[in-house]
């Protein structure tokens, strides 16, 4: 499955950086998130408390450094929903590992609070903290952190051993966890006899066997070869689709972040600069830093059809005739029109030349023309990478339809190419020429009345501002994705 299918519905509307506002609105809707970090600060140095006050008053990092204090995490707030993969992404020194270690109390925040499943973690006694870790949070480490003198099975059972689970039961559960990661046959080997990827799977099995809902993963795949890393990412996503853990995943690899994360928090110099889905961060970076960061990302593997699609320009109803279809195409300067029924279910597409012929022949219906051209339909979650081949082979724009075949939007070839391009801003795409899809110049302005109807209501619509238009023919209503 694609990780993007699980886009948190509540957060998809959030594109800005104003985390505090966002958190406030969220708390009213969802009372107990799996993990909640509230104004977390971690500063190293004697005068850390003083430095926190300064930072809260708006002082910058340099001012604080003059006090001899090193700020690692500054004012980090976020919530992680049950069953979500939340990726914290940042370069080394951005404070992401420090942030993660505050989530299970390995580091005590200088200021701020952490709540795990509604329990306030900050301020717990050492003993209470240990039992909270045993029951709620486990961790996977960058360099695996396995016990070299114990077998794979004993390593996987470590969390249960700490929980004082009886031996037979913990062996059983460790074996099951090892089976989950595909290492069931290796229980009696020593970790040193395993490859790096296998060792990290033991690390993962250890965390899974502990039976906690929350999993913290600290650069878990960074020490692995690229191919193995890829394999591990797939396995994690596959496991996640079955187990539905809440995962906080730290990485410095943006592609990994985009592949795994339901949402991503971008960190820089100890601050979270943006939180959003991969697509939001790509399409609407909060600042230049993020924009620069994401410019090298393989967009085709992150963006989905729904992110790049445009409003269908020329759409006609099933009962309308060739004349109306041609008029619609002419109005919008396109070479083909999509035909939909009353429920906006896609019936097919008609091209201008064939429609003109039909008109000359005096045909009253478009029905006979529909078979001429196969429209390629894709789902909104299809990755852009998977759109390239069908787009190259299909003369009309790709149609994006939902599960019930309702037309949500279209992806013309030029749009696809623009989306893959570096700039990626809506303006530059809007000005692009449509190429042979239309065989006409796009410089002409769209009909004023139709563009007025369609204020951009979503990201998809924003992309198509200039040309967005839906012909109001017969019973066809405006089509909004």
């Amino acid at each position, binding site marked *: 499955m694609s990780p993007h299918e699980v886009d948190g519905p509540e957060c998809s509307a959030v594109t800005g950086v104003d985390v505090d506002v966002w958190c406030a609105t969220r708390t009213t809707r969802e009372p107990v998130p799996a993990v909640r970090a509230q104004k977390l600060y971690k500063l190293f140095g004697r005068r850390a408390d003083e430095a926190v006050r300064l930072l809260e008053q708006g002082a910058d990092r340099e001012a604080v450094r003059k006090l001899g204090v090193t700020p690692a995490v500054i004012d980090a707030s976020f919530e992680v929903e049950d069953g979500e993969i939340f990726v914290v992404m940042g370069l080394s020194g951005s404070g992401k590992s420090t942030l993660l270690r505050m989530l299970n109390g390995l580091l005590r925040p200088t200021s701020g609070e952490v709540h795990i499943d509604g329990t306030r973690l900050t301020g717990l006694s050492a003993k209470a903290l240990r039992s909270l870790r045993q029951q709620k949070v*486990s961790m996977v480490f960058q360099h695996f952190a396995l*016990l070299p003198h114990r077998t794979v099975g004993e390593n996987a059972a470590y969390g249960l051993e700490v929980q004082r689970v009886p031996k037979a039961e913990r062996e059983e559960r460790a074996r099951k966890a090892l089976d989950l990661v595909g290492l069931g046959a290796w229980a009696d080997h020593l970790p040193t*006899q395993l490859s790096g990827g296998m060792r990290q799977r033991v690390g993962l099995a250890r965390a899974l066997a502990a039976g906690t809902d929350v999993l913290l993963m600290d650069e878990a795949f960074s020490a692995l070869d690229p191919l193995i890393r890829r394999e591990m990412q797939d396995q994690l996503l596959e496991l996640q689709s079955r187990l539905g853990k809440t995962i906080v995943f730290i990485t410095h690899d943006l592609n990994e972040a985009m592949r795994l994360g339901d949402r991503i928090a971008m960190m820089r110099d100890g601050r979270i600069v943006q939180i959003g889905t991969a697509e939001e961060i790509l399409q609407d970076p909060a600042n230049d830093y993020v924009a620069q960061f994401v410019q090298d990302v393989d967009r085709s593997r992150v963006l989905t059809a729904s992110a790049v699609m445009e409003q269908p320009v020329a759409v006609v109803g099933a009962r309308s005739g060739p004349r109306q279809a041609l008029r619609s195409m002419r109005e919008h300067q396109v070479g083909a029109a999509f035909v939909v029924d009353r429920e906006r279910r896609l019936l097919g597409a008609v091209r201008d030349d064939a429609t003109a012929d039909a008109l000359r022949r005096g045909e009253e219906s478009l029905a006979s023309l529909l078979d001429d051209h196969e429209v390629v339909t894709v789902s909104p979650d299809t990755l852009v990478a998977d759109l390239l081949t069908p787009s190259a082979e299909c003369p009309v724009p790709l149609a994006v339809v939902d599960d019930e075949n309702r037309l949500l939007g279209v992806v013309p070839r030029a749009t696809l190419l623009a989306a893959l391009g570096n700039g990626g801003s809506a303006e530059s795409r809007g000005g692009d020429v449509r190429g042979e899809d239309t065989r006409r110049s796009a410089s002409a302005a769209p009909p004023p009345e139709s563009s007025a109807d369609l204020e951009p209501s979503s990201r998809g619509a924003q992309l198509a501002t200039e040309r967005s238009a839906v012909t109001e023919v017969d019973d066809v209503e405006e089509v909004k994705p």
Partner: protein
Amino acid sequence: MNGQLEIPQIPVGKAFAASVDWLTQNLGFAFDLIGGALGTAVGALADFLAAPVIAGLALVFGLLGLALRGPKVGAVAFAVALGAGYLAAITQVPPSLVLTLAFAVIGLALRGWKFGLFSLVAFGLIDAMGEWQAAMETLALVLVASLVAVILAIPIGIAAGRNDAISRVVRPVLDFLQTMPAFVYLIPAIFVFSVGVVPGVVATVVFSVAPGVRLTELGIRQVDHEVVEAGEAFGASPWKILRGIQLPLALPTIMAGVNQIIMLALSMVVIAGLVGGGGLGSAVYTAISTVDVAAGFEAGLAVVILAVYLDRLTAALTNRSAVVRAQAAASVN
């Protein structure tokens, strides 16, 4: 006064002597207790080595078999040793030969036949040089002193390894202990414990404890931070982390510390001969005072043989630790 600036003299030595005086007067009973215990332990061990009790020897082998190969082998080893011991007693084999064989078998069990053969020849040579009695006294002193030093060093080293403040306090003390000339320890030791084997043991412990502490601390600190963190992250208590993670992973380094303790104890033992510690130390001392090259060399060679034997034995024990075996398993694959 001729105008020269006079440096005020501080009587550091006198102050130290006064504090030793005070200790002897006020804590005399404690020193008597310690001295008595140490003297008894060394005496008993020396007696055992001079004339081994057959049941005791069998028990040693039984425990060795148990530790190496499990209860069955332990029981067999106990039975065989008991039988062989009585056979030796009946046929009146001298105890030195019985012990030489015992040392060889221990070497064989822990390291292999080459070391077993070396042990047989080496201890045979000590016996043949007529140094057996002295060598066993020295061995008793070294073993008791090393045991005390290890019991002191490992907990202090662990504490220093886990706590920076303790480490900062302990380090200069260790520096002091290691660099103060070894002879100097003998003086207060005699003062407190009077002449005999006990001041030798005490001076040996003080002299050899430092590397044990240092290497234990190093071992604990060298344990992969992430693995310790993993223990914490899964909610293990500090005690469980120490026992399940830090100690097993630090064991090879700690064993190197134990090895250093034994080696330093052996080198100190000769000096202890000066204060009536007996054994090879006294033999060397007598040889020096009579300028007897032959006697000095024989006693010295006996010390070397003991050192090599004990060194190889502790190394073999280290190689049997789980961590080292795991590393070996990795290199095979």
